[in-house]
């Protein structure tokens, strides 16, 4: 056989990189900054090649100083630039939480509307790669707790590709969570895809018997669970929240009004987590639509362990989602 190799299907990583490339090319105010984003190509390979294309001023390697470079992103955003700051993982982002919560999320209000912070912060989240407890947590629920920021969780290639532009156009800080298990996922890009409406959740699968509500790295598991349930003639609707703040509860509630049963799947811890917020809203606003208690499938209440069988036991799995849906359906 001669000629070029068949083009491989793009990955989630490729989609993120293409979004960054497009953003850097489209607006000279945009620059990318973070640990190893330049010469190394990004800890997860997302920004590979962008340094050569855009130069060290706009693809800027930083020292290991999360607070300083996230804070510098805040300042640069205030001054009219459009920084994209990569913080390798959500666990590391805790070192920058002062800048994210006390400054990025707060300055607009505290200044009486004067100091807007159009900053985008990207980071990985989630477990599933045996990275143990300091590289595996799902803390997007913590960030979703904070007024003043927008929190995104792209779960699909198209969201990875088309969430960045509207995030950069948002006048306020946006935190984007990329689930670490998604980077190598391949897919066929939707040729008609357009910038994502960041205010709306997405129904990823239609169904009539139970609603599975999830986001990010758990979407694939929820869709797989739905397929298994279908073999038992249980049709599950799958809602991808995709924007965790502001939370589009209307889409989830409309689905529950059709199916009358809800399972919330969240890799974060159950106690005081995002799943609690979603379940509470269903109880508050959709109580009379329910034919069964809201089920939750969450991360176990444990720091995520290294050993494979323990890590798997700590995370929501397809079988657990299927079992919860069956309980709900009764």
């Amino acid at each position: 056989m001669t000629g070029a190799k068949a083009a491989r299907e793009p990955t989630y990583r490729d989609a993120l990189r293409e979004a960054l490339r497009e953003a850097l090319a489209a607006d000279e105010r945009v620059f990318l900054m973070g640990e190893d984003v330049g010469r190394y190509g990004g800890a997860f390979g997302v920004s590979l090649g962008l340094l050569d294309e855009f130069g060290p001023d706009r693809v800027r390697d930083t020292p290991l100083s999360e607070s300083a470079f996230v804070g510098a992103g805040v300042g640069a955003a205030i001054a009219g630039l459009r920084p994209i700051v990569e913080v390798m993982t959500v666990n590391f982002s805790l070192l920058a939480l002062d800048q994210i919560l006390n400054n990025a999320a707060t300055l607009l209000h505290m200044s009486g509307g004067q100091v807007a912070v159009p900053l985008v912060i990207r980071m990985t989240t989630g477990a599933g790669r045996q990275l143990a407890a300091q590289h595996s947590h799902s803390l997007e629920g913590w960030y979703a707790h904070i007024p003043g920021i927008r929190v995104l969780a792209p779960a699909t290639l198209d969201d990875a590709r088309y969430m960045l532009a509207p995030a950069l156009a948002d006048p306020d800080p946006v935190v984007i969570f990329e689930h670490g298990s998604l980077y190598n996922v391949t897919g066929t890009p939707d040729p008609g895809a357009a910038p994502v409406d960041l205010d709306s959740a997405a129904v990823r699968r239609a169904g009539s018997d139970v609603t599975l509500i999830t986001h990010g790295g758990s979407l694939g598991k929820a869709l797989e669970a739905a397929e298994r349930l279908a073999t038992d003639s249980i049709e599950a609707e799958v809602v991808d929240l995709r924007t965790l703040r502001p939370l589009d509860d209307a889409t989830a509630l409309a689905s529950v009004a059709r199916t009358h049963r809800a399972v919330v799947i969240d890799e974060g811890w159950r106690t005081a987590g995002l799943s609690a917020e979603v379940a509470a809203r269903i109880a508050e606003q959709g109580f009379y639509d329910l034919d069964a208690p809201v089920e939750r499938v969450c991360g176990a209440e444990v720091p995520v362990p290294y050993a494979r069988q323990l890590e798997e036991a700590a995370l929501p799995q397809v079988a657990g989602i299927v079992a919860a849906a069956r309980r709900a359906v009764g």
Partner: protein
Amino acid sequence: MTRRTAADPHRGSLGPPGGREHRHDLLREMLRIRRFEERCVELYSAGEIRGFVHLCIGEEAVSVGVHQALTPEDSVVTTYREHGHALARGIPMAAVLAEMLGRVTGCSRGRGGSMHLFDVGRRFYGGHGIVAGGIPVAAGLALADRMRGRPNLTCCFFGDGAVAEGEFHETANLAALWDLPLLMVCENNLYAMGTPLAREHAQIDLAARAASYGLVAWAVDGMDVLAVERAVRRAAQAVREGAGPYFLELRTYRFRAHSMYDPDLYRDKAEIEQWKQRDPITLLTDRMRAEDGFDDAGLDLVEKEVSEELERAVEEAGKGGLEPPEDLLRFVYSPAGERP
């Protein structure tokens, strides 16, 4: 090899200090801050001003001296002890006071209070309540100027306590690494709230610590407004010319407690009295008496001018309206269609 060499601002020619009129202006600026804060004490005691209120009485030479060297295009980021910086920057007294009274006419619409004064038009970016939290933001403002080729600098104020925070060290490294036009002004008043310098720092020579990152770092008498001005002018010029970040340690003292809540049990009264001998306002006044023929009548005139401004400000601030609770949730997010 060190990247830069620290220089002593007291060595060599700094050029003549400003003339008589200039000294007069400096005195008036310091008196504005002093009398304003004394009135804040009264309003606090009367229950009109609430919350944490941190006064800079005794530190006026820092606010006034530094601002002589800044242009309107420069950016300023500061701490919660910032009434002096705000007034020296030109934010109207009435807007600062209205903010402390929680009025919608305040410079942060009553959402910030004493610790969070903002005025974007004057590039005054707070008013930060987290010790050292404003320092990285200042580096970002400086980075933006550098990336866009603008000849401005960002002046960042912080206290001696902030030098123990990681954000200071991370930012000093980042700023030196990237040659940012950042002027780091450490207002060393010897106490981090109630903890004296020697109990909070293993190395109390703060300028030496900053110099270890490659910043040019000087220590300056922060009670002498003319010395402050000279040093800052020289530093600012170098920063503007691309010499990278500078660190100035301004050695000063606050005559009052950390905040209005603070019973001030940790300092010797004798120490306070000793520092009051070097009151920056008295120091400048004495010099003006000796060199400029300044006299009591001249001082009375300045005091009268300041007093009139203050009375007008108190009256105007008191007339400011209150933002209705229905507007509580405004400014959590930018209004749609108003994208900066």
